[in-house]
Every structure is written in structure tokens, then in C-alpha cells.
């Protein structure tokens, strides 16, 4: 019960410490070994964050206004306030497999894309560290083709006094990655629910309610030539169906992505083919 025994362990101040017994020396040595063990364990775990970055690195689609990947990872404080304000729950937090990206927000566009239902890019407003920002600080580099030529016009706000989104850089660009499966190119129409009855994703339809997103499954389509990606796109003039020439010289209809594309991923979410014919390439810049 008493502490008195312990006090005798420490040598009295001023006098040189008595030599340690063999047992004590061993105890001290084991303690050093344990200290090294904990150091190794913690540092190993900490530095394992580099692994996903070093190989097979997944490029994630970040929320609107995100800094470039490296700066984004360094500035994100992993609080998830962006997750909390998103009206369509498009933003998720990454897990352990993302290394240093654990806890950092990303968008899985195929599951739920950012459709700008908030009208003002609330995630940028919520971010406390400037990881998501309307205007990048001057010293940070701008990726090639990231800068938008003009502030994107949000179709839902087109008739408002302020129709634009306060975005200066795109987070990616939509690309027709699987043209062979695209229904429009095959000249096919589409009838029914874009992603089937089980799909949970939401989208804001101006023809239904300008303010409230509804389930994609609750909004069936019936078109003679598939143009779902064009219909669903929330940004003005970002995508259209154009006549193109196939390699064999025949005329085809195909979705064509234009410069105003911000990389929100709505076209990828809505695409009825499996896997999606059109996808957003995260961090991609615009190339004419």
C-alpha cells in the first residue's frame, strides 16, 4: 500500500547513483527494447499511409472546389463538415485503404454524383481549412486545363439573377470511355428507370421540383434515342448529342463533352449501360 518503498529507488540528489544490479540492468534493457517496439509499431502504421500512394493508387473524385490532389491531402483536416452539408449525400469519407487519404472526402459518381442541388456549393462554404475553395491562393499551381473558361451556368438557376456557380476550376472531365456500349452511338433509345428500381441515387429534376432532389428510380425515361446524360447534366452547354462519323464512314449520334464540363459526374451516375459508357476522370483537365 505504501509508496515509501519506491522512493528509495531514486538516488538522493547530489550523490552519484549507485551501480545498478544485474536484474535492474536487464529491466532497463527490456524497457529500451519495448520503447523501440512501440516506436517501430507506431511509425510503421503511420508511414504505411504511403503505401497506397506509392502503388496502385486510386484517383478519387474530390468535392467541388478541391485543391489539387497533393495539396488537398495536405490541407484536409478530415472533419467531414462537407459530408454533413451535402443535400444529396454525394460526399463520402475514404477508409484505411486510401493511406494518408483516410478520412478525406471523395465522390463516388456512379453511386451518387454531385448534382449541385445546394445551388451554392455548400461543401466549399463548410470547409474550415480551405481544402475546398472558391478561389485558390495564388501560390498554388493550377493543373493544365483545370481552369474553367467562364463561371459555369447552373441550369436550375438559369432564370435567376445570379445563374452561375462560383467555381473556377473543374474537378475532372467527363469522357466517353466505352463508346462501343453507348446506346446513342448504337442508335438505340431507352425506356424505364435509368439505373433500375434498386438504385438509391438522387437527382434534382427541374421538371419535377427545382429545389428538391428525388430518387432516380422514381423518374422513368422514355426516349427514342438515348440522351440521358445530356438531359441530366446540371451545367449549361457542358454536353450535347452531336452527329459524328464512325471509322467506317457511317453517321452516328454521340454524346460530346464541351469545355464548360466541371466533372460533377451526373452523366456517369445516370448512364443506363452497365458499366457506365461515360465516366468522369478525376483531376483531368480540359483538352479541346
Amino acid at each position, binding site marked *: 500500500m505504501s509508496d515509501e518503498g519506491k522512493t528509495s529507488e531514486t538516488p538522493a540528489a547530489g550523490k552519484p547513483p549507485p551501480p545498478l544490479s544485474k536484474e535492474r540492468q536487464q529491466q532497463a534493457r527490456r524497457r529500451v527494447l519495448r520503447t523501440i517496439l512501440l516506436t517501430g509499431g507506431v511509425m510503421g502504421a503511420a508511414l504505411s499511409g504511403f503505401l497506397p500512394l506509392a502503388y496502385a493508387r486510386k484517383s478519387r473524385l474530390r468535392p467541388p472546389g478541391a485543391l489539387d490532389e497533393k495539396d488537398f491531402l495536405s490541407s484536409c483536416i478530415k472533419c467531414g463538415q462537407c459530408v454533413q452539408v451535402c443535400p444529396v449525400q454525394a460526399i463520402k469519407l475514404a*477508409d*484505411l485503404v486510401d493511406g494518408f487519404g483516410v478520412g478525406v472526402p471523395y465522390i463516388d459518381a456512379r453511386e451518387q454524383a454531385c448534382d449541385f442541388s445546394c445551388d451554392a456549393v455548400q461543401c466549399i462554404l463548410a470547409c*474550415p481549412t480551405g481544402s475546398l475553395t472558391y478561389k485558390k491562393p495564388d501560390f498554388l499551381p493550377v493543373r493544365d486545363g483545370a481552369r474553367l473558361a467562364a463561371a459555369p451556368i447552373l441550369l436550375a438557376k438559369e432564370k435567376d439573377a445570379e445563374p452561375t456557380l462560383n467555381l473556377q476550376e473543374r474537378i475532372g472531365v467527363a469522357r466517353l470511355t466505352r463508346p462501343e456500349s453507348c446506346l446513342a452511338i448504337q442508335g438505340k433509345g431507352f425506356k424505364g428507370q435509368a439505373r433500375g428500381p434498386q438504385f438509391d441515387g438522387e437527382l434534382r429534376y427541374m421538371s419535377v421540383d427545382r429545389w428538391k432532389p428525388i430518387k432516380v428510380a422514381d423518374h422513368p425515361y422514355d426516349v427514342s434515342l438515348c440522351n440521358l446524360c445530356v438531359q441530366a447534366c446540371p451545367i449549361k452547354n457542358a454536353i450535347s448529342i452531336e452527329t459524328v462519323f464512325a471509322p467506317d464512314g457511317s453517321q452516328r449520334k454521340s454524346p460530346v463533352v464541351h469545355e464548360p464540363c466541371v466533372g460533377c459526374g451526373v452523366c456517369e451516375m445516370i448512364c443506363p449501360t452497365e458499366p457506365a459508357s461515360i465516366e468522369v476522370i478525376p483531376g483531368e483537365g480540359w483538352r479541346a
Partner: protein
Amino acid sequence: MNDIQKRRFLDQIMVMFGREPKKPTDISPKAQEIHFYKKGNKDFNAEKAHARAHAEPSHKWRNRRWITLILANLLFVVSFRFDVQILEGALTASRFIGFHLIDLNSALQVMLAHKHIIMNLLIGTGTVLVLWILFGGRTFCSWVCPYHLLAEWAEKLHLWLARKKLVTDQTIDRRLRSVFWLVFALLAFATGYTVYEAISPTGILSRALIYGPGLALLWVLALLVFEVFFSKRAWCRYACPIGLTYGVVGIVSPLRIKYRLQNCFHEGDCRKVCLVPHVLDTVIKGRAVDTEVPIGPDCTRCGLCVDACPTGSLAFDVKGLSKLL
């Protein structure tokens, strides 16, 4: 503060950074008198009554603390799940009814890695700094941090296993925590990644509670297993840089635990329940430098020692307030 107490205060700061507490060289005459009296006289009746009092442990402060800790974390969860928007975000950074609150260590990591500071980050850091200067830095650890609660339960398990002689507590050099603090700061600066945030159990647990569990909890589990079977409270004691950051804030904090030498019987039950027993070296017989000694900045103000002491030798105290009252 007289010279003796000033020296003692500096010693306490050094002990926080990992130095082992030493026997004090100079002790005030009044304290010397009490030490002398205690050495020569044993009041057997009082000691018996005292032992009886120890048999009925109080859990007043522990219960208050657990309720506070659970409510604070629940407020985060409820704010998001039911969209009541009182406390948005997670423990690394949040907004309490609009006020930015940003964890000091997380802010530091981001500032070092990103090398750029925006206004909101600065405001939030300032708010938290003022908050924990008032309430005593490491109060965050025991009253808010969710890992602390799990580690407290893991410690109980460890002690139970230790009683059964199945495990022993393997102590580790406490200076390691200061080394880790420095290493993580340097890593953030050099690599540009907030390396520590990837393994911070505080952040991982807070996010798991609010946004749902993930694989990252495996790391927290590994830490708890290490603490149960190998080394008691290892993370909080020897590794966590958040604790050291808040400990430094606690240097200037007016809220602390105060030790009164007169009533103390020196059986050391307070040190047995303490997460950071090095701050309680004062209660060892003959070590108190004065009749009243404030406990050092590394103290988490958890109140377990206050609960453990039936004579009230240890009590919460606000610097300067006792003079006013």
C-alpha cells in the same frame, strides 16, 4: 509563487516532456514541519477510520466525466444523423452553433503540411485554445476524447488480467511521447501529408461514430489489444501528440487539481488510479515542497484521484479563485 514553488513548477513542465520526477531538494519550512511530524507520529485510530473510508470508493467525478464525454460525442452524432446542426463536423474540426472549433494538434499538422493558413482555420484554433486554456488543456483528453473512454475500459481489463497474473504492465520510456510529437511535426512538414491524422485514434473513432465504422478501426483495436495485454494506457502515456499539445496549453490553465499535504496519509491509492501517475509524485511521503501543491500540466483533470481520496487531499481548484471567495 515563491522560489520553491517556481522551481517545482518548472520541474512539473520537464516531467510532462518525459523526465522522471525527482525527489525535491528544497522544501518550505512549513511542509518540512508536517513531513517531520508525520514521520515520528502514527495515529492508528485515524488510519483505521481512513482505511474504512477507502473501502467505499466514490465515483462522483468519474460518472460526471463519463456522462460529459458521452454527451459531447453524442452531440456530434445526433447533429449529423438528425440534422439538428448544433455541433457539425468531427473532433478534428467542427462548428458549434456556427463557431469554428479546430483541434490544436490537427490544425498544427495541417498548417505544417500545407504551409498555408486561412482565416477560418485560425479562428477555430483560437476558439479551442481559449476554451482549453480556461478548462485546462488535457481536460480534453479525459472529458472529450472517445479513445480515452475505451482505453479506460481496456485498462480495467488489463488490471483484472494483471490480478490473475496473466499479464504484467510493461512500462515504456515516457520521453517517447515528446519524440513522437517532434517526429510527426517534422513528417508533416517534410512530406506534406498530415501523417499523424491518418493514425490518430481520436480522429478515427470520432469519424467512425459520426459517419459510420470503417477498416481504420482495426488500428484502434490493435492499440487497445496492445494496452490490454502488454502496456497499460500505452497510447495516451507514451505516444499521443494531442495529449502533449494540450498539456502545453495546460501550463497556463487556471483549472487544476490541488494537493493539500496536511490531510494526506500517503497510501498512494490516487497514484494507482491515475493515468499519468508521474504528476502525482508530490503525494509520495516527504516529496511535497509546500503545504499546498498544484498538480502539474500533464494532469488530465479526470478526477479519479479526487474520487479515490477520502480525506480530500486532492481537489479541483481554480487558480486565484480561492482567494476571491
